[in-house]
């Protein structure tokens, strides 16, 4: 056992740092021009524009330690914004289950950030019980296209998306996990209606999406008809064992401590307040532990093994930690926690703090609510069954 980074890893870290330093946005520089240039240069580094993609598809093919270093370093800087739907969610499915033709057709635009994707999974009647979905896709008699009817909900950024990857029901005769088909189609077309849902934080991020007789050519189907659940599930597991954003949380926690120490309390500041300080301490200790849980999980993946049981707790712990940071930010705001809207009053960090906290409540709901995650750990890791009367 050894906690040291190897010389190669240290060199890699320096290389990442200097790349970030050299390619920082300059004062007065146009954001989108900078963003485009940044990804181009990252690509020239050997796939740094798609760090998580395998080498076979143009990714850098890093070791788990290098991925960890990358995550730590990116947490310290402002990278150009990116969305996970195409790059992190659809791309692995295309790589694993898509045809070569589909890979050639879709992956380059995803990589170039040219096409925005959204994810059509959840439905009004299918939340954490995702397989219960009812959006119907009927194959035409000549077998050339599907006709899609139904509704999706909680569709993040559907109002800005060019395409959707969508789970549809093509057969409801078997168990609910069977008969699900994975389709890709453009969002800007007749028969698709997107309606905003305003969440507690007052923002428009998620939507309902209604499909009325949307025609989708069969060549836009991933893999076989009826096997969509298998493809999507592989991804969900990938999502669960993925990095839990802990490096970012560590940086945010340090920022929170700085903020709290500017809040006066008597002769001292909020960081001298025993109960507040304890909450910050417990949060940081949980983070230190979870960070190592993540490293252990990366290490077992690196030695070629399946992700160990410890990986199953990363989403549970990681999301809870993020929520606690938001909660403590609101607490630090004191009386200004109740101010709403863009006009900031009180300390600068109070602005939007409560909205951020309210928005953070979905962290333990999306991608399978925490309770569902616990059901999965109970079943997969502890070997416990549910509801089988003896």
């Amino acid at each position: 056992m050894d906690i040291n980074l190897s010389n190669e890893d240290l060199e890699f870290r320096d290389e990442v740092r200097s790349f970030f330093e050299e390619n920082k946005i300059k004062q007065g520089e146009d954001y989108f021009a900078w963003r485009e240039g940044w990804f181009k240069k990252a690509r020239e580094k050997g796939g740094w524009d798609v760090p998580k993609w395998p080498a076979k598809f143009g990714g850098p093919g890093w070791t788990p330690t290098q991925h960890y270093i990358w995550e730590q370093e990116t947490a310290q800087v402002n990278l150009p914004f990116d969305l996970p739907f195409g790059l992190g969610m659809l791309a692995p499915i295309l790589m694993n289950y898509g045809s070569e033709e589909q890979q050639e057709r879709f992956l380059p635009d995803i990589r170039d950030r040219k096409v925005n994707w959204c994810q059509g999974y959840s439905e009004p009647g299918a939340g954490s019980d995702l397989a219960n979905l009812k959006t119907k896709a009927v194959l035409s008699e000549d077998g050339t296209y599907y006709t899609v009817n139904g509704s999706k909900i909680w569709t993040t950024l559907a109002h800005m998306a060019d395409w959707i990857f969508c789970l549809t029901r093509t057969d409801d005769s078997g168990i609910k996990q069977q008969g699900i088909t994975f389709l890709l189609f453009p969002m800007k077309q007749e028969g698709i209606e997107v309606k905003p849902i305003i969440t507690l934080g007052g923002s428009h991020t998620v939507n309902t999406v209604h499909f009325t007789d949307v025609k989708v050519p069969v060549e836009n189907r991933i893999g076989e008809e009826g096997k969509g659940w298998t493809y999507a599930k592989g991804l969900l597991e990938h999502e669960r064992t993925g990095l839990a954003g802990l490096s970012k949380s560590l940086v945010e926690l340090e920022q929170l401590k700085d903020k709290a120490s500017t809040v006066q309390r008597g002769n001292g500041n909020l960081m001298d307040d025993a109960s507040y300080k304890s909450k910050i301490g417990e949060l940081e200790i949980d983070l230190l532990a979870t960070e190592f849980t993540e490293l252990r999980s990366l290490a077992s993946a690196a030695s070629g093994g399946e992700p160990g049981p410890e990986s199953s707790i990363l989403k549970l712990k990681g999301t809870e930690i993020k929520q606690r940071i938001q909660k403590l930010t609101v607490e630090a705001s004191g009386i200004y926690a109740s101010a709403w809207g863009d006009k900031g009053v009180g300390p600068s960090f109070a602005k939007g703090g409560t909205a951020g906290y309210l928005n953070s409540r979905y962290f333990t709901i999306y991608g399978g609510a925490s309770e569902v995650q616990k059901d999965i750990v109970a079943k997969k890791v502890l070997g416990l069954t549910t509801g089988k009367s003896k």
Partner: protein
Amino acid sequence: MNFELSEEQKMIQQSVERFVQENYDLTNRVKISSEDPGYSQEYWTAMAELGWLGLAFSEEEGGFGGNQIDTLVLMEQFGKGLVLEPFLANIVLGGGAIKRGGSPAIKESVLPNLIEGNLQVTLAYAEEQSRFDIEDVATAAREDGSNFIINGKKSMVLNAESADKIVVVTRTSGSQVDEDGISLFLVDATSKGIERENFPTVDGLRASEITFTDVEVPSGNLIGEKDRGFSILQAVVNDAILALSAEAVGAMEVLYKDTVEYTQQREQFDHPLSDFQVLQHRMVDMFMEYEQCKSLLLRATMETVQDPILAQRTVHALKHLIGKSGIFVGESAVQLHGGMGVTEELRIGHFFKRLLVIDSQFGNSDFHLDKFTSL
């Protein structure tokens, strides 16, 4: 960066695991604990012969040149059987202090005997008023020619009943709570003026209150420099925290696994208990706390091996989490075992008691949270 044990460490891990499985069922443990001296002399000798007592000492000291990771490997397995043999008192505490501050003559006379299991040494540091503050030392050592004269009282001294020698933490200058002015001495347990009041602890181990009345000790028995003993004490306490935390992690593993097994067998309302989601989620929480403790244990241990001063904050973090989570896992195991959980018949209650004791030693959960946030 890697989390793999060496081949040697893996072999030791397996051999300790086997030892615990073969010798430490509950009946045997209760029997050994209830008879004097509270552990098995036969097992202690076996541990010495297997080389376990010398793992964390250097080769010059008669050991095998290992470090805190080797101790972790041993203690985690010990935790799975609540091993009674006084490894912590002798090797981590007494031996740890001598290793760090003993003169060549003391090292030579004590360490090889300790490693062979022929001599026992413990550490007397706590006092009634000190609670968890290791710098709060009232027991005084007054210089008198070539000797020091020790007066005072030490509390909760582990395994003192069997100790041949005691490393005693004294005040040689400064005020009662100064880090400077603390000196450590090695004294014979049978010295004139030493009185031991022995008693069992909640977890079936042994401890003593020790009174020192005009106890004479030659100045050559100083462990470390006069007045500069605090840094040795702190390093030894940190090692003890790592060792106890490893034991706690082993104990927590047994508790969550026993609970998973029991709830699958026990039927109520026509279902195995494990069918009930509310119990499943409690067990998932137990499992998660165990894994988190294990992660932080590895982190604190690896950081200590790398740089013990920089690791101090993580060691505080570890003892906080171990205390809090250990008790959570213990209480949950008892709760999920229902009435059986509160009997002496099942081993889980004994594991729970050990975790309670571990929280009360070397600073409890709140104490270390406070230290953590102050650093």
